[in-house]
């Protein structure tokens, strides 16, 4: 019995909490945020299902920018059931070539089918899926296995109106934004410990800073002049 147990612990897929964070078997892409890379054991995983829960419009896609910038020539980036029409300007701004980006839409079941087809075809490197309903365990498992087998990443976005359920994923995240930074929680990750409240500062919008500084610059002398007169 103990012999069998010993054999089991030798299995390369098995990770025990007492082990150091496993980094050797999965290739990772640095996220561009040092604190996050540290917590994730190197960066974003390049295969498997990643879930992110957040409110809509907090820069949830931009968080994965390093992953999108890392897409190889001839491989595709799919947006499935995105909450609006995706804009070419955004990709041009971030220097992501447009010709390999596709957006699909359809009902819930069609979208899941499409996501699985994309992951299985080995031509998609990143599949971004917006789910309007909670995925069942089987559905999530299917996506995770297809992504893992074909070395592609599936990012599942769930907004807060979707009921939260525990799913078999590679990495489970939740994000909340406060002004110029987001607080990221790692709820669950394969081969690593959960972490809470990792501060990451980035902003998906331009600032009014140039205008404000110009105001400050020109208003001050003007104010002096009014005093004089």
């Amino acid at each position, binding site marked *: 019995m103990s012999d069998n147990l010993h054999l089991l612990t030798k299995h390369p897929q098995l990770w025990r909490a007492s082990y150091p964070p496993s980094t050797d078997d999965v290739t990772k892409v640095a996220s561009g945020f040092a604190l996050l890379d540290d917590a994730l054991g190197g960066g974003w995983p390049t295969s498997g299902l990643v879930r992110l829960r957040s409110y809509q419009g907090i820069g949830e896609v*931009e968080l994965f920018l390093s992953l999108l910038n890392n897409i190889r020539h001839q491989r595709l980036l799919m947006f499935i059931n995105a909450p609006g*029409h995706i804009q070419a*300007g955004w990709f041009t*701004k971030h220097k992501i070539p447009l010709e390999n980006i*596709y*957006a*699909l839409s359809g009902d819930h079941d069609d979208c899941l089918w499409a996501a699985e087809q994309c992951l299985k075809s080995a*031509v998609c490197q990143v599949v971004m899926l917006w789910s309007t309903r909670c995925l069942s365990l089987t559905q999530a498992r299917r996506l995770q296995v297809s992504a893992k087998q074909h070395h592609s990443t599936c990012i599942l976005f769930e907004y807060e109106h979707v009921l939260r359920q525990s799913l078999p994923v590679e990495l489970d995240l939740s994000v909340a934004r406060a002004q110029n930074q987001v607080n990221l929680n790692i709820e669950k990750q394969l081969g690593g410990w959960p972490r809470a409240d990792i501060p990451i500062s980035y902003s*998906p*919008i331009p600032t009014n800073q140039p205008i404000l500084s110009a105001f400050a610059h020109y208003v001050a002398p003007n104010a002096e002049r009014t005093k004089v007169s």
Partner: protein
Amino acid sequence: MLWLYLDFYQLTLDMLAPIQTELRVQPCIIYRADTNQVLQCNALAHAAGIESGMGMAQAASLSGELNIIDYKEQREANHLTVLASALYPLIGDIVLAPPNSLALRLDPSIKYYEGLQPLWQTIINELTRQKVTYRFATGWSIESAKVLAKAKTNTIIAKRTDIHHALQQCHLKHTDLSTKQITSLSRVGIHNIKSLLALPATELGKRFDNALISYLTALRGEVFPHCSYFHPEETFSATIEPAYEISQTQHLIPWVNRLLNQLATFLRLRNQLTASLTLTLYFRETEKQIYQVGSACPLSKASNWEPLFVLLIEKLTLSHPVTAIGLCTNATEEISDQSSDFFSDRVHYFAKMQLLGRLQAKLGASNICQPASINDHRLGQLAHTQASAMLSEPCAWQPLFIASQPVLLTQPSHIQFGPVRLQTGWWDGESVKRDYFITQTARGEYALVYKSPPAEQWYIEGWYG
């Protein structure tokens, strides 16, 4: 058996249009001198009232600035082989019907694509990429599909009864029968295909020759005449014949580029590289000239070969006008292990074609789109118009997602950025005058909002994902 017949009814125009810009801005016809017939005409010539089948005098009287290009059968046949080679990786059973048609046998490939619709979508995608216009139809034999394609059926049907029904609607002039045969058929009271198909072959045999009988049995799908399938060439050799004679060297470059692109596809399919190419220039009056272009290391991509050819062409002086350009490979070699990247791209290309075909078949082609940059600041316009020239600088304030319908802003929000005033579109009736702001709600959501005049309400136009 299920055959698809593709009739490229304006192949010469389609082939020349990407390079010769005047074909897009001037009325233009393809004219066959020996029969005095207009064979193909572009959209502008159509608008002037020119139809194919007209004589030269009539066409010339309808349009003053007509651009006339001589029809050459060989030119079309050459381009047909290019199309067949492009389709060959997707479907193996191709029969050439020169000068301008292809017959594809669909039934053996259906199972690889998991259905007829995905297969058809994949074929459409490739034809769109090749920028050709075509008429098509399916039938149980090449002959029946051809009749339906000539009758402009333009639908994919697989059921025998449906094909039979569609065939009965066709006129005799869509068949391969000669006018003499059609008149003699009408003399015995056969005016349409329906009555022709209804007659037993033995009855017809008494009056008509064997060729007609065997054509009819093939049309009915009772006998399948022997056909030779298309096989791509072992070595690359292609010739291209522009519609005009080239006397300035810089005009050679776009045509050479097209040949290089064909070469790149050819080599990619065979997993090969080549280190030297032969460029042949054919002149109107003097002997052809041959130039060798070599590279230090074996190459395959058109973008790598192009600079070498540009260097060669810059040095040339053309003593006579060039009428045709040829390109062939001298020796090819297999790709070695060190360039395994190349091999993976090859797989991805066809996997991509297959995936897109399958997705379009299931979700509907309208539910799949690509972001395209266009020359317009209006955000809603970006969503559904086709790609054209890009704005010189992407706007930093544009959001990732644009709502298909503006949403009412209901949550209290803070302005973070703005205003950006947009006043444009006065020329096409969809004029826009708005001040855009970026706001943030208490939950941290960034949205692009504007105030709309009628009710002075705030609307959300997009989100910053």
